[in-house]
């Protein structure tokens, strides 16, 4: 079964770019890579999703190398309000059903 590994915590300063990498060596062909943000006392919130190469939206970019065994969430110019836990999720439809594997989360702390 695929397992996702991400750093436990990261520190940054306001205005910097933050890159959080997730390792998923056993990703399956049909799996997508999705990132979520979670604030205390709230459910996770969808940030971005990709299958391969690069995806960009209004809040983040997601870089996925050709072998898809890792992915990097890039947050441009972080602010204090980006302090949160970020989860990498790998999953999709597979033979035998749907599988979804969350990483343990990366706690990002943005300092002034």
């Amino acid at each position: 079964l695929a397992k996702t590994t991400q750093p436990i915590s990261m520190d940054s300063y306001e205005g910097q770019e933050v890159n959080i990498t997730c390792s998923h060596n056993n990703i399956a062909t049909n799996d997508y890579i999705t990132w979520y943000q979670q604030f205390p006392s709230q459910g996770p919130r969808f940030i971005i999703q990709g299958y391969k190469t690069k995806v960009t939206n209004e809040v983040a970019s997601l870089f996925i190398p050709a072998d898809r065994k890792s992915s990097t969430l890039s947050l441009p110019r972080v602010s204090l309000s980006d302090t949160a836990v970020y989860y990498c999720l790998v999953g999709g439809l597979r033979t035998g059903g749907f599988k979804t594997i969350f990483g343990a989360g990366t706690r990002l702390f943005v300092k002034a």
Partner: protein
Amino acid sequence: DVKVTQSSRYLVKRTGEKVFLECVQDMDHENMFWYRQDPGLGLRLIYFSYDVKMKEKGDIPEGYSVSREKKERFSLILESASTNQTSMYLCASSQRTLSYNEQFFGPGTRLTVL
């Protein structure tokens, strides 16, 4: 604005009690999910439903069951609560797309079993 609501934010139950956690979504989503979240372990999938009356086991279904009688409602049942089921329970829903992974989460129910 899309919304997933859960019946309780906090719940305290005793060992051996039957516990019902309710989740309702207003987005007409086909898929619904129940997760539990524990420190250092991230989110783990308990059960998944892709249609009314349909369910599939996730990674940790033991000690849990689910019910989906209506499209908008997905219930998680702890048949006989135990202390190791003390956790944060999160419900989510998504459209039936290739990825299933753009999920919308509720605020969570923090369950304590004494």
